[in-house]
């Protein structure tokens, strides 16, 4: 028996004009071009609400590239969902933001790559930073809730204080400081992006001090880094437990990275209702609850706290998605994570040249 999901992550498209190296989407994202149309998405939004979801997060890729975004926001609001747009704000106009607000958009989450245009635009691979700040202020002016999010890594961690100041300056009510998770392109660029322990510790101290200082004004969320903690991240709050993801082609996943796992049985909203897939889909059952766990996890007092950690990480590091997440100190594979940490500070303060998202075309996909 499964509880209903609290949120639908609607990945409307994997297309994106930015080229962030830390992107966690599949590196063969160009092969997911057969996107769901407006009618199917509208049905999925209704089904998610009927199933018990309260939030929808429109994400991608860049969801603004869908010219039916306003219709989808309206469909979500009609279904009773609280609507969130996760966006780079790429070239968004005041008129479009106003149209989205008019359609009922509740909350906009604008990504920033760094604290200043020079660093941020270099990472994004295109000039976007200045426009993001204008767009963020416009979101506030239109009365929508505003979050800023920044993915953190070795190249921007030293400026976390400036990133916090930026979020304050645009009036964000929430700031997500999310350390890079090692999937997709980020995994391929791990060596360049992996923080060293000292840089990370300094950034964390800055973030936690800001969280205390800004309590009641801006929620500062520090998403713990993979591999440097003494316990694994409770990935997705447990497999098929609180979140359901629909990717651009309609495949339904317990987590946005799950299609990288072997042997999964993917269901699509093109073939079955969302609720059936959530309750009965084979890939949702696979790591739900505790029955699948190794003895290491099954006998652990934290099994209902971190749910065995991240299946994708277990697979990426050990080749077996059912093993205990190697980031857990109790994992027999924990040395794999220890070996990848940077215990010494990096020698160069401003490493490397351009670094971009991996872009592979493998060929058409059936789903």
């Amino acid at each position, binding site marked *: 028996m499964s509880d209903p999901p609290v949120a639908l992550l609607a990945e409307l498209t994997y297309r994106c004009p930015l080229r962030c190296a830390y992107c966690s989407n599949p590196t063969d994202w160009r092969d997911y071009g057969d996107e769901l149309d407006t009618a199917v998405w509208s049905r999925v939004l209704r089904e998610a609400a009927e*199933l018990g979801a*309260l939030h929808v997060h429109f994400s991608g890729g860049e969801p603004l590239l869908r010219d039916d975004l306003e219709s989808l926001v309206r469909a979500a609001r009609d279904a*009773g969902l609280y609507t969130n747009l996760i966006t780079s704000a790429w070239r968004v106009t005041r008129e479009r933001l106003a149209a989205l607000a008019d359609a009922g958009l509740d909350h906009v989450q604008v990504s920033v790559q760094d604290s200043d245009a020079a660093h941020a635009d270099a990472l994004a691979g295109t000039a976007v930073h200045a426009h993001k700040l204008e767009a963020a202020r416009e979101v506030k002016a239109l009365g929508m*809730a505003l979050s800023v999010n920044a993915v953190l890594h070795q190249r921007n961690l030293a400026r976390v204080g400036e990133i916090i100041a930026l979020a304050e300056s645009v009036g964000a*009510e929430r700031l997500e400081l999310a350390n890079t998770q090692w999937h997709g392109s980020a995994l391929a660029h791990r060596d360049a992006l992996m923080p060293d322990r000292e840089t990370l510790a300094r950034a964390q101290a800055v973030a936690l001090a800001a969280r205390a200082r800004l309590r009641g004004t801006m929620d500062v969320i520090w998403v713990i880094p993979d591999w440097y903690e003494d316990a694994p991240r409770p990935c997705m709050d447990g497999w098929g437990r609180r979140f359901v993801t629909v990717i651009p082609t309609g495949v339904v996943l317990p987590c946005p990275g799950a299609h990288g796992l072997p042997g999964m049985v993917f269901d699509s909203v093109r073939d079955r209702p969302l609720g059936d897939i959530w309750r009965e889909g084979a890939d949702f059952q696979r790591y739900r609850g505790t029955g699948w766990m190794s003895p290491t996890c099954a006998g652990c007092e934290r099994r209902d706290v971190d749910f065995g950690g991240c299946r994708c990480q277990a697979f990426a590091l050990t080749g077996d998605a059912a093993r205990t997440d190697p980031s857990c100190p109790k994992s027999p594979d924990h040395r794999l994570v220890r070996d990848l940490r940077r215990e010494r500070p990096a020698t160069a303060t401003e490493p490397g040249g351009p670094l971009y998202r991996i872009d592979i075309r493998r060929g058409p996909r059936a789903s």
Partner: protein
Amino acid sequence: MSDDACRPTLARRARLRWDAARAQHVVVVPEGVLALSAEGAEVAALLDGRRSVAAVIDALAEAHPEAPREVIGDDVRDFVGRLVARGYVTLEAP
């Protein structure tokens, strides 16, 4: 918590609704959900920006003659105070 003459409003980014799947009232906020007790839902529904804190307490005291007014008052001030601290309710001065 503030003056009873202040008028509390549920912030635009905080939406009160019935959650049928879990049979409870909730306030949905960006990236979060606050589950409300039946009493909490009754208070939240009165935070419309027109009623003062005192008027909210009056309305509840009238609806629940069995409950002591001081208890209702303490509960309302505590509830509103916690929502204000989290930014989900704004207070307008009288």
